[in-house]
C-alpha cells in the first residue's frame, strides 16, 4: 500500500474515531459496573436486544409500520405542498388566493394539534398520516414556491424568445430551475417527517418503533428503548443519504453538486 492511498484511507476513517471511542468507553463503563443497566445498558446488551427482537419478527414488523407511515405521510403532505408551491409560483392569482392562508397555517406548531387529532381520528393510522403530512407540507411548499420565483429572468426571457410551448417551458426551464430549492425543501421535510412520527408514535399508537419504545419503558427494558432510539437515528440518516443521492443525480449539472463532491 502506497503512502498516498494509506493516508486517503486514514482520512476516510478519521471521522469515525470519536464515535468508536465513545462506544468503547461506554462498553467499558458498563462492564465495570459503573453504569447501571437501568440508566444505560452496555452496547453488547443493546445489540443482543436488537438481535432478539429481529429474530422474533417484532422489530421488522414495527419498522415496516413506521416506514410506511413516514412514507405515506411524506407523499401526501409533500404532494400537496408541491402542488401549492407550483400553483402559487406560476400564478399570481393563486398566490394572492392561497399564500397568506398557508403562512397562517404554518405558524401553528403542528405537534400542538395532537390532542385535537386524537379527538378526530383516535390513535388510528389517519392521525399519524395527518400529522406527518401537515409537517412535511410547508418546507416543500415554501421551497418550491421560492425556487420557481427565483429562476433567472434572463433565462425565462430567452426561453420565451425561442417560442417554447408552456409544456416545454415547464419541463425544460421552470422545474429544473426550481429543483435545487425543491430538494433543499425535501431534505428539510425528511427531518420533520421523522420528528413528527416519533412524537406521534410515542404519544398515541398501537404499533411502530415509538410504540415499541413506550412499551419497553413500561417494563423497564432500557435496552429496547435504546434500540428504538438508534433505529430512529439510522432511519433519519438513511433518509438524508437518500436525499443527498437524489441531489447528486438531479443536480449533476450544478458545479456545487455534480463534480468531485462526495
Amino acid at each position, binding site marked *: 500500500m502506497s503512502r498516498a492511498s494509506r493516508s486517503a484511507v486514514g482520512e476516510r476513517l478519521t471521522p469515525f474515531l470519536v464515535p468508536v471511542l465513545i462506544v468503547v468507553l461506554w462498553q467499558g463503563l458498563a462492564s465495570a459496573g459503573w453504569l447501571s443497566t437501568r440508566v444505560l445498558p452496555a452496547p453488547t446488551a443493546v445489540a443482543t436486544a436488537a438481535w432478539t427482537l429481529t429474530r422474533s419478527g417484532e422489530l421488522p414488523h414495527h419498522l415496516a409500520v413506521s416506514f410506511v407511515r413516514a412514507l405515506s405521510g411524506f407523499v401526501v403532505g409533500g404532494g400537496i405542498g408541491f402542488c401549492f408551491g407550483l400553483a402559487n409560483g406560476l400564478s399570481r392569482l393563486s398566490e394572492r388566493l392561497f399564500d397568506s392562508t398557508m403562512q397562517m397555517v404554518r405558524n401553528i406548531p403542528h405537534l400542538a394539534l395532537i390532542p385535537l387529532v386524537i379527538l378526530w381520528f383516535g390513535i388510528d393510522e389517519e392521525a399519524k398520516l395527518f400529522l406527518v403530512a401537515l409537517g412535511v407540507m410547508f418546507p416543500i411548499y415554501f421551497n418550491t414556491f421560492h425556487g420557481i420565483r427565483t429562476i*433567472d429572468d*434572463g*433565462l425565462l*426571457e*430567452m*426561453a*420565451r*424568445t*425561442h*417560442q*417554447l*410551448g408552456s409544456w*416545454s417551458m415547464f419541463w*425544460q*426551464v421552470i422545474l*429544473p*430551475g426550481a*429543483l435545487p430549492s425543491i430538494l433543499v425543501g425535501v431534505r428539510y421535510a425528511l427531518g420533520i417527517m421523522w420528528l413528527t412520527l416519533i412524537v406521534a408514535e410515542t404519544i398515541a399508537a398501537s404499533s411502530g418503533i415509538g410504540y415499541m419504545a413506550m412499551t419497553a419503558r413500561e417494563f423497564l427494558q432500557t435496552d429496547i428503548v435504546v434500540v428504538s432510539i438508534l433505529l430512529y437515528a439510522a432511519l433519519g440518516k438513511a433518509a438524508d443519504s437518500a436525499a443527498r443521492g437524489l441531489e447528486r443525480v438531479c*443536480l*449533476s*449539472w*450544478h*458545479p456545487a453538486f*455534480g463534480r468531485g463532491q462526495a
Partner: protein
Amino acid sequence: MSSVAWQPSDPLWLRRTVAEPGTETVTREQAPDSGTHEAPLDFCGADNGEAVVIRGVGKRFGETPVLQGIDLSISPGAFVAIVGRSGCGKSTLLRLLAGLAEPNEGQVLVGGAPVQGFRPATRIMFQDARLLPWRRVLQNVGLGLRGDWKPIAAAALAQVGLGDRGGDWPSVLSGGQRQRVALARALVGRPRLLLLDEPLGALDALTRIEMQGLIEGLWREQGFTAVLVTHDVAEAVTLADRVVMIDHGRIVLDQAITLPRPRRRSAAVFAELEGAILSRLLDRPGGPAAFV
C-alpha cells in the same frame, strides 16, 4: 481560453453545413398565436434576410421618454450597428425589434409585417449567454427544435468551432465559449433577423476579436439581417454596413461604412472613421470633459 480548436484563420465556419435528408421535418416549436411563417432551412445567400422598417417610433417608461421619433429602415441582409452611451435607448430599440416590448407610438415592421410578440424568424443574443445550466451544450443549442434535432444542433455547434463540446455542461465553458454556444443556438433555426444586444461586451479583447470574425463570417454565409447594439465603436466599424448613433432617444448619426471586408483595424481609413464616430459620440456639452 486554453485549448480551443477554432482560430480566426480556421475555415471551419466558412464551410457550409450540408442539410441532411429528412431535416425538412425539423421546425421550431411555435406558440399557438404566432402566425408568422417559418424561416426555411434551405436558403440561398443574401435574400435570406428580412427588411426592417421603423416608422416614427416612440417609447416611454412611465413619463420618461426613452425613444422619440425614430425612423430607420434596414435593407434585407444588411449589418447595422447601433451605438450610443449607456441609457441612450439603444437596447430598448432592439427589444422593440425583438417583440419583447411594444412601442407607445409608431410602427415596427419586420419582413413587411408589424412585430407582434416573438417571431420564430427573429433571434436575439444577449450580453450574457443565457444557457440553461441544467442542459448540456448540445441540448442548449437544440432548444425548442423538434424532430430529429441532434444532427442540426451538432452542425450549428461545429460552425462555431465547438463541435466536440456538445456533451459538456455549460458551467465548464469559458465566457467566450458560452457566447459561441449562444450564437450557435441563435443560428440553428436559420433566423432571418439576428439581434445582438452587446453580445461581446463581457468578453476579453482577444476573444472579442475572434467572436467578431466568427459573427461576420456566419453573417456573410447565411445572409440574415443583423442589428448589433454596442458601445464599442471599433466593433461597430469592424462589422457594420451602417453605424447608427442614438443619443437621448433620437438618431443623431447614420453613417455608411463601405470599407472592404474583412476590415483591418490598422488601416488608416478605419481609424479615421472610428475617430470621427467616437468624437461625435463624445461631442456634447461636458462630454469629453466628464471623463477626465
